[in-house]
């Protein structure tokens, strides 16, 4: 339960962080809130040789709306985004999902970008980002690129990030006029990892439904027309398609049942709160 030895550098600018990443690649890890990384280091599931502490980089501390997105910098904690005054108005799905993330005591340090970079298949933030069709902004010495959420997270704890890149921001699309949003999840205890989590965006034409905790990454499907009028068939097909497996928390069958039941309820809830 003690991490192995590493060097620690606190950096003041993104340029310093990406310099270090360019030089040390896979040996280096970005340290922000540390709520997943340090736990994994304590178990020695990861043994970085260098931690680059980015929490002091001022340029990464902003929450900013521009061009139809809210950009959240890599040093912004979950607690800070939850306290952002415009959250419920501009990002209603996040406002509903964020109280389910960990605990008061972990949201105070855990960052929004950190959770997405860590990309646990049962985490709420990657699911919300995928369901909304958000983006991840990566930087390295080679330049900067922006990936759609769907292209960023490739599987459980795996992403398209190259070893010399760091996530500098994530971009959540702002509330669509007239759309309704809903979120719910099933956990064993408040704040635990989700056995199944469901998020939905309902517009006049369709519902985008995202499910986390079942497949290896958050998975989004679109329902419209007849499939939406009577969604049970489509939800059943989706539940099987996700290919969940048995583990110590739940059976695959139970997970399929949750996708069908919570899916149906969340679709209805999202539709009923369309404005």
């Amino acid at each position, binding site marked *: *339960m*003690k*991490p*192995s*030895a*590493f*060097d*620690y550098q*606190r950096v003041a600018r993104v340029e310093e962080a990406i*310099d*270090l990443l360019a*030089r*040390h690649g896979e*040996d280096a890890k970005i*340290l922000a809130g*540390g*709520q997943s990384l*340090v*736990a994994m280091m*304590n*178990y020695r599931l990861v043994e970085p*040789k*260098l*931690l680059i*502490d980015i*929490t002091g980089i001022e340029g990464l501390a902003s929450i900013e709306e521009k061009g139809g997105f809210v950009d959240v910098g890599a040093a912004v904690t979950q*607690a800070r985004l939850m306290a952002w005054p415009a959250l419920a108005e501009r990002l209603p799905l996040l406002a509903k999902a964020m*109280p389910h993330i*960990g*605990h*008061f*005591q*972990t949201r*105070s*340090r855990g960052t929004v970008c950190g959770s997405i970079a860590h990309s646990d298949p049962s985490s709420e933030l990657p699911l919300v980002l995928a369901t909304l069709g958000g983006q991840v902004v990566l930087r390295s010495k080679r330049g900067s690129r922006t990936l759609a959420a769907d292209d960023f997270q490739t599987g459980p704890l795996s992403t398209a990030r190259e070893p010399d890149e760091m996530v500098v921001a994530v971009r959540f699309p702002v509330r669509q006029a007239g759309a309704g949003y809903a979120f719910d999840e099933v956990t064993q*205890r*408040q*704040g635990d990892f989700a056995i199944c989590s469901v998020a939905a965006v309902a517009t006049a034409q369709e519902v985008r439904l995202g499910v986390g905790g079942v497949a290896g990454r958050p998975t989004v499907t679109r329902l419209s027309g007849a499939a939406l009028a009577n969604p049970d068939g489509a939800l059943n097909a989706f539940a099987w398609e996700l290919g969940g497996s048995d583990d110590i928390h739940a059976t695959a069958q139970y997970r399929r049942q949750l996708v069908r039941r919570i899916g149906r309820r969340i679709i209805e809830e999202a539709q009923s709160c369309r404005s």
Partner: protein
Amino acid sequence: MPELKTIGRKSISFVLNGKPVVAEVEPRMLLSDFLRQELGRTDIHVGCEHGVCGACTIRFDGRPARSCLMFAVQADGHRVDTVESLATQEGALNDLQRAFRTHHGLQCGYCTPGILMSAEAYLEGHPDPSEAEVREMLSGHLCRCTGYVGMVRAILATAKARKDGKAAAE
């Protein structure tokens, strides 16, 4: 650019319960271990060492934090408060601590320092919480003795007394 130095120590200085601490630490030293093993303090407890139980909760720049998910080097230049910051120098317990005693909010006391630090941070931002909100806040802590009922009462009673006290003072 300096080479990686995985062996060796870094100098840190931070403010612990209002008093300066200056030390040299290996980067891999957890903040919880630094407080207990290097400084010999027993006012933080360690249960799980992976962020689940909440026993090690401190306040870091005022915000609640698991000290087992932090390294001592991260404290450099910051402020750390443990449960010892609550009582007066003469050892008189504060109102929340007294309420825990009155309402049987603890039995063995292992979880208590962390819970007190969380509850203090929570009450600052939520001076008038509902029972459900207090329980949600407590979901970040494990207590193997009490069943939580006493501590919920203690926290609610403290919130009410502080509110009434403030109203009376105004």
